[in-house]
């Protein structure tokens, strides 16, 4: 079926040339003189690209802010230069991270929103002795006794527990006693970790879990799930999911006139598309979160001006993660990975871009976990979620079944 007779030998030569150029490129060192290089790994394509791009923007914005304020002072005002790598799946993480380390010579790596990808990347950074600062929060990340991994947010189970505790506390303040709850989660690293926290918190509080159902990522029809939920008699539903499932679940609930409160588990519940997908039905939905724009208004405004949407929690936390790296370089007066790691391990500061992390500070413990941060609960008001719980972080009062809770 080939129309024109192709010069096959030329094609073969061309392919060989491509191959040779390939290796020549891989071998070429790419290092600028005065900048300090920080690697950023995020899923920029594939199913989690939405979150990866938000996180990437947060990191870029943080680099701009730090550079505009004079870069790393202790290194003569060296500018932070980000080197990005796309890691759509955990399979690609090891190679991409290795490339950033040995090819680009980065001083530290920030990122990988997705827990499993972060786990894969951390196995490389640990062996190469390069610090990795992350937002991903599956419990295993800081649970392996690794020395080079730092996590800005609390653990996944802590998010699950907060999701339960905060919601029942708000319900209680509104005069409703909770006896039965439902947990619905997607079977990913993130979903299972957070569901575990929910389950344990419910057990500790003596509340019955009447439905505890995992479902596959990318579920196309949630009606069986919602049928089970309706039959279970739960007073609160705790779904833990990315976006598509969250829209499906809320819509199906509304169709069936099920008015039990839905307390989302972060991810899909607190991004701009949640509102775009649900319109007015998004209003009043509660969700646990790692951060919220109203805690760091300056950054939130800059972000909105630049990208046109409200700042997501993954953007805020990744901005703080890069800030921690910059602060560690200031402290170490060096961009040497080992010294940056040691400085990160003893870092203890508040303010700056860390103000976006609930608690406002960054202090890593022995496992690399930021001990000063805690989960918050946000509620949709108009176009963006606002912080409503716990009271020490809240900017507005929570609303439960239509009435404001004092």
């Amino acid at each position: 079926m080939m129309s024109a007779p192709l010069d096959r030998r030329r094609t073969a030569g061309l392919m060989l040339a491509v191959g040779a150029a390939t290796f020549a490129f891989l071998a070429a060192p790419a290092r600028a003189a005065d900048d300090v290089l920080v690697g950023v790994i995020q899923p920029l394509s594939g199913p989690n690209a939405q979150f990866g791009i938000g996180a990437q923007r947060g990191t870029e914005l943080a680099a701009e802010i730090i550079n505009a304020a004079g870069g790393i002072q202790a290194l003569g005002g060296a500018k932070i230069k980000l080197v990005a790598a796309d890691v759509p799946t955990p399979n690609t993480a090891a190679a991409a991270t290795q490339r950033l380390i040995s090819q680009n010579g980065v001083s530290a790596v920030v990122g990988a929103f997705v827990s499993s990808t972060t786990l894969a990347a951390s196995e490389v950074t640990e062996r190469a002795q390069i610090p990795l600062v992350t937002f991903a929060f599956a419990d295993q990340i800081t649970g392996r006794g690794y020395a080079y991994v730092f996590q800005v947010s609390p653990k996944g189970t802590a998010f699950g527990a907060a999701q339960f505790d905060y919601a029942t506390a708000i319900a209680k303040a509104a005069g409703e006693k909770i006896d039965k709850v439902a947990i619905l989660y997607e079977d990913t690293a993130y979903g299972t970790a957070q569901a575990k926290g929910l389950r344990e918190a419910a057990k500790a509080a003596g509340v019955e879990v009447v439905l505890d159902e995992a479902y596959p990522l990318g579920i196309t029809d949630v009606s069986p799930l919602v049928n089970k939920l309706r039959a279970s008699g739960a007073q609160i539903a705790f779904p833990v999911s990315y976006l598509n499932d969250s829209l499906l679940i809320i819509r199906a609930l509304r169709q069936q006139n099920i008015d039990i409160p839905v307390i989302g588990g972060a991810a899909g519940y607190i991004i701009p598309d949640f509102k775009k997908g649900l319109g007015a039905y998004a209003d009043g939905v509660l969700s646990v979160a790692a951060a919220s724009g109203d805690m760091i208004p300056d950054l939130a405004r800059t972000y909105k001006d630049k990208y046109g949407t409200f700042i997501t929690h993954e953007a805020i936390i990744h901005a703080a993660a890069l800030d921690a790296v910059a602060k560690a370089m200031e402290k170490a007066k060096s961009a040497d990975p080992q010294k940056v790691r040691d400085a990160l391990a003893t870092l203890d500061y508040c303010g700056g871009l860390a103000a976006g992390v609930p608690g406002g500070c960054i202090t890593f413990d022995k496992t690399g976990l930021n001990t000063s941060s805690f989960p918050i609960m946000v509620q949709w008001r108009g176009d963006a979620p606002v912080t409503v719980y716990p009271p020490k972080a809240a900017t507005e009062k929570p609303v439960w079944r239509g009435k404001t809770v004092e």
Partner: protein
Amino acid sequence: MRNLFSPSRAALLLFFLAAALLPLALDPRGHLIRVAAMVLLFAAMAQSWNIVGGLANQISLGHAAFFGLGAYTSTLLFLKLGVTPWIGMGVGAVVAGGAAALLSIPTFRLKGHYFALATLAFAEVMRVIANSLGDVTGGPVGLSIPFMGSQPALFAFRSVASYYWIILGLLVAVCAVFHLLASGAIGYRLRAVRENEAAAEVAGVDTFRVKLTASVISAALTAVCGTVFAQFTFFFDPDSIFSLSGISVRMAMIAIVGGLGTLGGPLVGALFLIPLEEVANAVLSSQAAGLSQFAFGVILIGAILIQPRGLMAYWLRTPWAKTRRAAATGA
């Protein structure tokens, strides 16, 4: 009698010689040697696939099932029972071979697209099972190979070069098995089955047994690659190890782009595709999301349209290979 120094054989020797000398030129803990090791590992995977896909012409899109079985068996044996992955690797091969034998029962009559779809579904079954049996497999969180410095007895090394040598050895072994099968009695039977199954059966070939042997060997070798992959990348989860596009399709794609059913095909295919993908990622992923994968897809389509028989066809057309052409295209 075969000429020991035929050009094809010389090219192959040259390839392995270059591969053996390469680590001397590269930083033993760097990125390039990791890419080179990946090239060899994917070549070994594609060669294992080639036994079923090339010799028997059964296009499997589910070899990730065996790959994952190998990775899970050795890693779980190590994490739960402390068995060294060197032994786990063998156990994984046996498990995967058994699974292949089981799968052969419902699928051996299937041809072409039907076989591809059945194997695809089998890998999906394995993925769902690995995700759901959280207590055994670690579930969707995946499994990490613990970091413990250099412990050769436990298949753990600090330098990438050590893994490189192991993978090179594996590739040589897989290629040897392929060559033995292709040129041995079973190779003739497989070719007979491929050309005309009914005729082969009439001629006294036990087609079920021949296909079974090929798929069990292919699966066992794939499982060994899986173990090595797990040790080499330190982490895997169900979605990535049982991945359709990341593993199953890629194994087959390398063999096909290189040249289906030829000994050199998987080597050429891996040498072409893996570095290309790596460069696309390195250059393009900071440009625009999706651009690198897009470019990869375009090149794949281009390669298939320009030369559907694979890159090996170019070699077979050169004057040096002309003498061996008949033998090579027959294999």
